[in-house]
């Protein structure tokens, strides 16, 4: 089946404006009669919940953390892009649009990306008005820095804590609505199922993580803003609680899952130090503004970095990509790091690392300026590794960081299930096969503040009149399913914890569906995943009970979903017989080792339809039509 993205007709620059005019409106008095469920309180979820409540809707907001302020958007460090052209360096909506489409290796919708670039400027205005303390110049105007995949400075930042400050802005807007009773907040509450009534999304089933109580909530529409699935790989830069459960449950209820194989591996993370490791820590890409990346020229050179003279160092990004240098896009920088390490030139105990060196920048502007610019990042590095990056270069290595794939949505951000909207990282989004740095915050806030609040009205105006209550038979059925599954986890009484299965799955995915993928490796993973899953259901050990706070039980539920979802991830990677962005298939590369797309056969979105656990899902296609940009080979040389 060919999917329809409902892209509005007309010239690119006018699509969003015209579309907004054509969307149906609900008058202010009637908005009060509609209830909306928003799951997740990151940038997209908190922004949406606050904006919808401001419009007058009744909002129910859910998060699994103890407070909406903890969502993982908070950990974004570097910044947020916007086409303000404050630096007078030739930026424009057109250029941000083009950089994003090209950065995504021409695998995103033109119309969505153009809209994102248009909205980007309003986001900065909104955040400044909320009191987000962005970095400033001495004259009081907003400061910018550069990020990968772009030759202009359009990234706004708040030290190394941009995500935190933007999220607190959204959290405060949300808190204001909670305070006046327009939003009902449910913290420590995890969504475990989506409920459909007559084919429309009408609510969710949740577990109260303090009491263990399973209950239902009904509404006129459901919005999922539950983030990405990097934690399928166990080790990633995501928070330990990040999971695929909400979108996987929706997938099992019929929502299509688009491009799961588009995963982003971030080039600058602190390398793994041992098998006890619970997560990896990112060092912001913004560090590549001042840091130079290098490895020794010779294999197995174990000298201290300071003892290696300039002539025996290989600044490989500057060498291979002279015009972008250390600011090459993430997928390219990650693969280049893997290549030099595979050649035996990696640094650190395990040989899985490259240097990110600030010596030149410190010489140029002084340690004080560098300290001000990156502040907490240098301290964080020292805390984790015990090494001072002012004295010796950082060691970095790529790690799973972000997932471009997600639930399929149309131009209105509605999935193929009527009434189910998906925003932020949870949808398959605007980033194509690779997201540029500082664009996740932009997309999350664009979806939450400026897109969903308009488009959801179009659905509610027509379909929001059918009211369903949480005592409907479909809710009861879902509650029973969830309760049965919870009991099952507790009753297996095997020998292995959910974490041990998760680690096993993560390693399998990293090795076979990571930075470089092959037909053979993916088939190996696809054969092995069901074996791990079978053992999970036979040999799982979940201590404690269901009617209480039980962190082992929470983990078990999330790992069970990763174990199903991982198959879809590998299958999508296997079926996409081309390389593009973060999806690199060894078989498909140029003579210079760059990703080689196959536009004739794969210039489309792949959206998967669930057919049962262990059964082959159906692959649907949405063709990508490019009317405004030429599909070139990505060239950062």
């Amino acid at each position, binding site marked *: 089946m060919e999917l329809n993205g409902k892209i509005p007709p007309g010239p690119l620059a006018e699509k969003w404006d015209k579309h907004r005019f054509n969307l149906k409106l609900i008058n202010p008095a009637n908005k009060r009669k509609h209830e909306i469920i928003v799951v997740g309180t990151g940038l997209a979820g908190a*922004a949406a919940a606050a904006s919808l409540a401001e419009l007058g809707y009744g909002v129910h907001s859910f998060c699994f*953390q*103890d*407070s*909406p*302020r*903890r969502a993982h958007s*908070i*950990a974004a460090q570097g910044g947020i892009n916007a086409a*303000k052209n404050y630096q007078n360096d030739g930026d424009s909506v057109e250029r941000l649009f083009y950089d994003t489409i090209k950065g995504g290796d021409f695998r995103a919708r033109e119309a969505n990306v153009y809209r994102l670039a248009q909205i980007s400027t*309003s986001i900065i205005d909104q955040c*400044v*008005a*909320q*009191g987000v*303390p*962005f*970095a*400033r*110049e*001495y004259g*009081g*105007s*907003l400061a910018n820095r550069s990020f990968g995949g772009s030759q202009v400075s359009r990234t706004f930042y*708040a030290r190394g*804590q941009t995500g935190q400050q933007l999220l*607190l802005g959204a959290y*405060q*807007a949300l*808190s*204001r609505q909670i*305070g006046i009773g327009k939003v009902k*907040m449910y*913290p420590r509450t995890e969504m475990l199922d989506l409920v459909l009534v007559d084919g429309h999304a009408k609510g969710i089933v949740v577990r109260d993580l*303090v009491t263990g109580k399973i209950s239902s909530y009904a509404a006129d529409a459901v919005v999922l803003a539950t983030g990405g699935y990097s934690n399928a790989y166990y080790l990633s830069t995501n*928070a*330990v*609680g990040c999971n695929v459960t909400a979108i996987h449950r929706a997938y099992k209820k019929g929502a299509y899952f688009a491009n799961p194989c588009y995963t982003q591996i971030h080039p600058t993370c602190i390398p793994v*130090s*041992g098998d*006890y*490791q*619970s*997560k990896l820590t*990112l060092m912001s890409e913004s560090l590549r503004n001042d840091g130079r990346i290098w490895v020794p020229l010779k294999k197995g050179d174990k000298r201290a970095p300071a003892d290696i003279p300039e002539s025996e160092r290989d600044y490989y990004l500057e060498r291979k990509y002279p015009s972008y240098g250390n600011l090459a896009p993430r997928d390219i920088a990650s693969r280049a790091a893997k290549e030099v390490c595979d050649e035996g030139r990696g640094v650190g105990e395990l040989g899985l690392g490259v240097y990110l060196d600030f010596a030149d920048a410190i010489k140029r502007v002084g340690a004080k300026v560098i300290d001000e610019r990156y502040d907490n990042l240098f301290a*964080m590095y020292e*805390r*984790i590794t*015990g090494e001072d990056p002012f004295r010796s270069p950082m060691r970095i290595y790529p790690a799973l960081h972000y997932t471009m794939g997600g639930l399929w949505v149309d131009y209105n951000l509605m999935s193929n299930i009527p009434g189910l909207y998906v925003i932020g990282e949870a949808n398959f989004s605007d980033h194509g096969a690779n997201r540029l740095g500082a664009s996740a915050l932009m997309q999350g806030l664009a979806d939450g*503040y*400026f897109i969903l609040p308009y488009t959801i009205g179009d659905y509610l105006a027509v379909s929001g009149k059918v009211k369903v209550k949480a005592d409907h038979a479909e809710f009861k059925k879902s509650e029973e399913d969830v309760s049965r599954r919870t009991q099952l986890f507790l009753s297996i009484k095997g*020998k292995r*914890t959910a*974490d041990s299965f998760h680690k096993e799955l993560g390693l399998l995915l990293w090795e076979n569906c990571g930075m470089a993928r092959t037909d053979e490796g993916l088939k190996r993973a696809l054969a092995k995943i069901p074996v791990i899953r079978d053992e999970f259901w036979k040999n799982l*050990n979940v*201590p*404690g009970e269901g009617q*209480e*706070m039980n962190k*082992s039980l929470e983990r078990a539920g999330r790992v069970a979903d990763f174990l199903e979802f991982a198959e879809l991830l590998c299958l999508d990677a296997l079926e996409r017989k081309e390389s593009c962005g973060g999806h690199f298939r060894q078989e498909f590369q140029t003579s210079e080792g760059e990703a080689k797309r196959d536009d004739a056969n794969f210039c489309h979105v792949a959206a998967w339809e669930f057919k049962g656990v262990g059964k082959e899902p159906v692959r649907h296609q949405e063709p990508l039509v490019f009317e405004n940009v030429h599909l070139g080979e990505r060239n950062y040389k």
Partner: protein
Amino acid sequence: MNLKLRVWRQKDASKAGKIEEYEAKNINPHMSFLEMLDVVNEGLAQNGVEPIAFDSDCREGICGMCSLVINGIPHGPDRGTATCQLHMRKFKDGDTITIEPWRAKAFPVVKDLVTDRSAFDRIIQAGGFVSVNTGCAPEANAIPIGKHLADPAMDAAACIGCGACVAACKNASAMLFVAAKVSHLALLPQGQVEKAARVQKMVAAMDREQFGNCTNQFECEAACPKEISVSFISKMNQEYLKAFKGDIL
């Protein structure tokens, strides 16, 4: 290294808790403190003992979810560091480590080391924001803000809402937390319109939640993983006095 742990175990808010002892064996000094607890928990689960419940999420010191009192100090011995960023190299082989939850009337224990910090959310809901609806913002550069204001506002805004300040205070006062938000917004031009009402409402909410008062011991600053300065408490007190002079509430 091998360690002895003394850990607070409590079934739920209604039951009494007590300290239990556990061994932590073969701990790698590069582990984070929470990874050490993960390893201990894995061992407990294998021996049929319920793992120790504790909160954590980002594990990079920014979400504010982790919250342990380690040897009597919230977030442990390393200054300016949240528990999740504390590494075992700060301890010695053979050490005994006592781990307890935040202790404050306003933060009841949920289970073991997990506490309920929703009181902080209610303080923010009372007024910790600028009332600006989505869509009605002026052009961003229309509000120039000098570095002399932007920098201290950012220093205050860096608060992660973990509650260590409360846990460290003998009065269980939330003054540093409230002062950080009051100061962040009072320093910026965007926060001026509501600044008097904001400080009054937030302080009233703080009192309602039964946090104690400040007696200038500055334990809060010493425990704060973001090293937020107590000078913001003076700033808040100033704003509070000015607010009543203006008689706005």
